């Protein structure tokens, strides 16, 4: 059903992910978790994730591309608003965002 490339992608993603964890066990006690290199690496990881999130919302690749930009942004506003209103709890925020998008998509006839 999947192309071999799909399985290769999943395998490679799994291997490079475990590599960090295995390395963490191997180096534990020898490298300080707060060294400068790890500081930089953490910044890169945050930047990459933030870039990915912005990309997924502003320039979606899959089915989300069929939803208007303003609807995606409205979902984000609803999520952040609800998250802050309930005292920074993730679940209500996530639910509000997803529900807002689903509702807007349904109303617009998708």
């Amino acid at each position, binding site marked *: 059903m999947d192309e071999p490339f799909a399985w290769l992608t999943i395998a490679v993603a799994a291997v490079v992910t475990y590599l960090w964890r295995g390395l963490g066990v191997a180096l534990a006690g020898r490298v300080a978790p707060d060294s400068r290199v790890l500081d930089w690496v953490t*910044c890169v990881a945050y930047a990459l994730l933030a870039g990915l999130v912005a990309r997924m919302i502003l320039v979606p690749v899959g089915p989300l591309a069929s939803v208007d930009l303003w609807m995606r942004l409205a979902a984000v506003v609803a999520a952040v608003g609800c998250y802050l209103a309930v005292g920074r709890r993730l679940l209500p925020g996530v639910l509000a965002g997803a529900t807002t998008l689903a509702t807007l998509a349904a109303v617009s006839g998708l």
Partner: protein
Amino acid sequence: MTQPPPPAPPASADDPAARLGGGRALRRGVIEALGAPALLLFASYLGFGSLVHGAELSLFAGLASTIATFALPGQIVAVELYATGATLTGIALAVALTNVRLLPMTLALVPRFGRAPRWQLYALAHVIAVTGWVQAMTVFHRVPVADRVPYYAGFAAVLLSSTLTGTVCGFLASDAVPAAISLGLIMVNPIYFLLMLSRNLAVPAHAWAMGFGVVLGPSLHLLSPDWGLLATGLIAGTAGFVIGRRPLRRRNG
């Protein structure tokens, strides 16, 4: 009557008499994972399941990804880049950079397991991800050292089950529910990560890195779908690192 009062919780972590023993520690981990942690991961893997469906991958590919990777951001990067037709090298580097945070996380967590056998540590390392890590860092002071491996194993076992269930439900729901609802499910992850990331804005370097990332992510993707994300991480991350350090250096002389 003359006995001293029971030791404070932090001290009891090193007290052999306070040990629960393997089975009970494991059960305690299971019980503490049931609830918000399991529910939140279930919800976010609902989104991953729909994303897998949207990328025209099979359910088995999605489940394999969840079991073998067990770190949502990297899984999403892999599926998203697969859907955009990126090269294997590009995918490997982007996933590696996305998940590199697991290295400092593991470095910080492993010493807290005490003198556990190496094979147990290497096995447990596979289920170190944000939810379990935060839980461990928060509660380990009240879990006796010898109980921590079974405790974490029980906690992570629940999380793994809930991620697998979420992947299945999200995938199947994409076919079963109206398109609007499945779009809502796909939206779960960008929103979940957005909110999670917003909790790390307190460190200036991280805030700058994320700010640059938000600007560069979409723009560099339009320039190069293959390398855009990777370049975003390196450029925005390095810029954030440099800017975030500067005030500190000035203050130090």
